[in-house]
Every structure is written in C-alpha cells, then in structure tokens.
C-alpha cells in the first residue's frame, strides 16, 4: 500500500521554561531555566523518529509539551488537522503517550478492561455496546488474551503491563504515538517483543512515532530518522543509517563510540572517545557552542574562538541532515 507523506507534527521554535528548583544549600530558589530552547522538528505519518540524548537533555519534556502536559514559553506545536479540536481532548485523539514505567502508569485498582474502556468511552470512539468487543480486540492485538480484561495490573509482568499501556494508547487510533523509554525497564528478551509490537503497529496503522530513548542501538533498529539532544537543544538530525555511520556532530560521534558493543573481536580494536567532565547543568549552560566544554573536536582543532563565542545554528546540509556544529565535515574523518 502506498501512503502519501504528510506532516503529522510540526514543532517550531519551541521553548519550555521551568521555575528553578529549590536547590539544596543556602540559596532559596535557583533562577528559571530553559529545559527546551528553540526546538524545530517535523514528523510525517508512518515515520518513526528516534529522540536520543543523555539524562536531563529534555527528551521527556519535549514529549510532554507535544501532548500538552507541560506549558510552553515560546514557539508553536501544530498537530495534523482532522479528527478532534485544538483543546486537550482533541489533542489526545491525535497523539498518545506511553511512559517508561509500566508499574506506575496503570491504575492499580482498575481492571485492565476498565483501563482500556476509559478512553473509548471518553472519546466516544465506539458505541457503548461495542466497547467490550473492542477491548478484547485490543488485548489480542498486543498479544494478550480477552479474559485478561478482568484482571488487575499486579497480575502482570513488566512486559505484559507495557503491552497493556500500548493497547490503551492505540485504543482511540491516534495518528501519532510518543513512546518515552518504553522498554528501558524490561529485560532484553522481553524488550525485543515490545519493540517488534510497536514497529508492527506503526506500519499497519501508518502512525507516526516519536521514540524517546537513551539506547542508541534500540533507536537504530526502530527508527528511520534520529534526532540527538544536548542541554535542551537538538544538535543533529539525520536518517538513522547516515547518522550512525557518519555522524556530523562531535557529540553524536562520542555517543556512538560509547555504545558498548557485543563481540570481543572488534571491541578491543575500537577506541572509544571518552568525553571529559560532566554534562553541565541547565543553570550554567556554556557560552557559544554549549558542547565546547566537553568537545573533543574543539580540543583537536586547538580551541577555536568561534566555538566559544558563537552558537552554531542547526544548519541544513546537502545530504539531508542537520547539524549544529561549525565543522560538521571534520567529525567523521576524525
């Protein structure tokens, strides 16, 4: 089946500002900080985009901003027109989120059937007398049994609970799913089952998927494009195979080299780029290029002043990728 590619999500210049946390010590309140700063992103139907970056880089905040769970301070989020209005409920019909922790995200005192029926009822997705049948269908689609509808979440393993959370997310047939670390809490053998399920659902429903993860290998397998975040900004976006073979940002290159690889053979040959120091806090984002305090290319090039003084924009390159580095061509050759 051929599908026309149309944008499902367009994010432009999106920023999210949080009030400073009450920091320990004597200071009462830290200054407000930008958890997201000028994010541009598009997603088309049927496309899986992987969002990677280290802890605190803003991945979850971006996901929550898109579904309307955190207020934005600048920029626009445009979700595909059609079904549903611009309010919260309308937005929910277009985009649904699956969270990392399958233990926390299901109501412990609701049966699985009640949990799955809820969105169907609220959104009047099917006639009331068809809800039971639809719940059974959903359970079967995610690899569970219709009689599981009568059970409570504590009867299920982590992998099974994640299947239930996925069933709930697809119940009202959204055009897009945001999956926030959906397999991080699961074991490898079960993780692959869930990843394959998500991949199948995306294909058969032509859904867009924003897949948030810190695991590059998982993202590489599941997504056609990958966006890399650092300190609340996107530093590189490219097709998955391009980005993993020839990164155009030194941070992406460092992440790739830090992925522990199976097979002793090549592990001994490969020398990882070990970045010095820690990820700076949002309260003290370095001037110029925010990555320059840890950048190996900056060091290698003799610390050019440009990197300290100016912030490299997320620029479009001829091969269809975007990178926020002044020297994208020198990354892969290093």
């Amino acid at each position, binding site marked *: 089946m051929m599908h026309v590619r149309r944008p499902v999500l367009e994010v432009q210049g999106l920023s999210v500002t949080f009030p400073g946390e009450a920091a*320990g*010590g004597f200071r009462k309140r830290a200054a407000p900080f930008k958890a997201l700063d000028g994010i541009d992103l598009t997603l088309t139907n049927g496309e899986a985009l992987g969002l990677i970056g*280290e*802890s605190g880089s803003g991945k979850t905040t971006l996901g929550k901003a898109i579904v309307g769970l955190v207020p934005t301070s600048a920029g626009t989020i445009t979700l595909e027109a059609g079904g549903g209005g611009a309010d919260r409920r309308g937005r929910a019909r277009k985009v649904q989120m699956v969270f990392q922790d399958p233990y926390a995200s299901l109501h412990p005192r609701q049966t699985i059937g009640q949990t799955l029926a809820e969105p169907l009822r609220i959104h009047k997705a099917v006639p009331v007398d068809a809800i039971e049948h639809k719940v059974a269908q959903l359970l079967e689609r995610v690899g569970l049994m219709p009689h599981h509808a009568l059970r409570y979440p504590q009867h299920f*393993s982590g*992998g099974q609970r994640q299947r239930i959370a996925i069933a709930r997310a697809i119940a009202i047939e959204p055009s897009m799913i945001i999956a926030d670390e959906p397999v991080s809490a699961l*074991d*490898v*053998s*079960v*993780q*692959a*089952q869930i*990843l*394959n399920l998500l*991949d199948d659902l995306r294909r058969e429903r032509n859904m867009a998927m924003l897949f948030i993860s*810190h*695991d*590059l*290998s*998982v993202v*590489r*397998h*599941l997504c056609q494009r990958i966006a890399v975040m650092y300190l609340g900004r996107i530093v590189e976006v490219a097709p998955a*195979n391009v980005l*993993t073979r020839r990164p155009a940002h030194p941070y992406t290159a*460092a*992440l*790739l*080299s*830090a*992925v*522990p*690889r*199976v*097979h*002793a*053979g090549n*592990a001994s040959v490969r020398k*990882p780029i*070990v*970045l010095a*120091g*820690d*990820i700076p806090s949002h309260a003290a984002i370095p001037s110029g290029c925010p990555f320059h305090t*840890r950048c190996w290319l900056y060091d290698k090039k003799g610390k050019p002043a440009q990197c300290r003084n100016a912030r490299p924009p997320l620029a479009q390159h001829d091969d269809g990728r975007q990178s926020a580095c002044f020297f994208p061509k020198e990354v892969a050759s290093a």
Partner: protein
Amino acid sequence: MRLLEVNDLTVTLNVGERSATIVDRLSLTLDRGRCLGLVGESGSGKSTAAMAVIGLLGHGSLSARGSVRFQGAELVNAHAKTLRALQGREIAMIFQDPMSALNPVQCIGDQIVECVRAHETLSKNKAQALALEALKRVGMPDPPAMMRRYPHQLSGGQRQRVMIAMAIVFKPKLLIADEPTTALDLTIQAQILALLKQLSRDLDMAVLLITHDLGVISDMADDIVVLYAGRPVERGRTADVLDHPGHPYTRGLLAAHPSIDDTTERLTPIAGMPPPLWDRPPGCAFAPRCNHVQPTCTQRVPDPVALDTPDHLATCILAGNTETMAAVR
C-alpha cells in the same frame, strides 16, 4: 592458587514452609587482574550470588551451600570475624545506586574517612591522606574540594567515583561491581568503565562484574558466566561465548539484543518470560521457551558439557553433540 574459586555455590531462600533455590550450583574461577562478567536478566540471581561470594547473606532467610575459596580459604559458613577481616580490605563491593549508599547529610571526605577507620585503626590525618589518594586515583577533579562536598552536590558519575574510591582505599584484590553503570548516561558509563579497567590493571585487581548488558560484558570481561533462572547455563572465555554461543538461551539473548552496527531491522525475541524461581519447570528451566526442546529436556536438569574448548561449558543436552549443535545454529 586461584584468587577466587567458586564450586557448586547454592543459595536457598526459606520463608515459612516455602523454600526456593535462588542460585543453583554456580561455579566459577577468577584470577588477579582479570575481569569476569556475570550476566543474566532481572531476577536471575546475580546480586544474590555476589552477596554469597562476599559472605554478606547474613542470618536471614537466605543460606548458602557449596564452596567459595578466596586465596585458598573457605568462605561459605566461615566465621563472621574472618569475613569481616576480608570485607572492604581484600574484597570490596560497589553497587548500582551510589545515592542510596551515601549518607546525604555528611560530607564526602568524612564518609570516606569513617569508612577507612572502620576497617583499620588510623589517625584522622592518616585516614584523610588515604581518602585523598583514593579520590585522585579515581580521577576526581580537585579532590580536596570534593572532600568538603555533600552527595547531592555531585553528579551521578562523580558519586559513583566516590563509591569506587571508598572501595579501593585498601587496594583490594577483588572488586565486585554490581551493575556499576546501569544508572549512568552513556558518556559517563564510558568514563567509569575505562576507570575500572585502569584500576584493575594498576592494582592487579580482579573484577567480578555483574550486568545485564551484553555490550558492557563484551567490552570488559575476559570470561563470562551466563545465568538463567538462578542456574549457570553457559560459561567460558568472552570471545568463545559471544562468537560461538553453545546454549540456546545465550543465542536467544544475542539475537534479541539490538546492535548499533547491525542493519537488520527485525529483532528476534525469545517467546515468553523467565519462570519464577520457586516454580521452575522440571528439567531444563529454559525448556518452555526453547526452540530446540527434546522430550528428555524436561526429565532432568542437564549437566555442563564442554564445547569447542575444555573451559567453554554449556548446560544443555545438545551441547557437545556436533550434529545437533550444527542444527541449532
């Protein structure tokens, strides 16, 4: 003499009438300067096995049988005094979550000094000097300033460095690291793994590395033991186990593991999930999930059989039989 020799270590959990075998006949050996990786999924008994090795099961509901010899001395059911003399000095341990192991209201320096003096009667100055030296060794920036900081003023990676510093103050011969990088970011994980490698080399220290991450194991370990439902299913040199896995479970794990360099998009999951430890299926515990299951598999627990080399063992009835092995691959 081997530094560590574990033979048929078995840990049982007794709660009221119920009893479960958490670790079932684990055997391994480890020499100075080497790294052994203990890999297995959540609940497979890795942490329990490590606690049993270091003699930390306590007097609760868990009890150990079998043998753990450290430099020739038996540790299973050894006197508490013998164990205390080893713990923290000759054998040290680090855990996944450094935050819960640190006291939030005491500065780092005081905590290390206290820990040092718990193991050896030393003047405060002497202990402080040891603490500084250890912080330097783990690559902490500005150690004297770090001594005055509190845990919440450190990043996750720095906290793990503090835990490692505490562990290596007395230059232990064996370091047990239980998921030391699981809570850390990729680039910080790379730093900590590089540090562990360097310390192992510099101090000629053996490392028993516990992880569920095959990539980390592949990067770090000289030898591997794979646990499934509390039982060792395969053991051998890292390259042998990962390049020619002999047990269907090991092969299944490798097939389910997404690789950054591999372009095949489809992963091959293992159907089902591991059994609860108090209700293992009869015979081979992997049988309900195994694609090669034979009628005899469920009759008794298979014994370890040598594969391509005498040190590469798999606990599967197909192991060692070249014809059936070829069919499995």
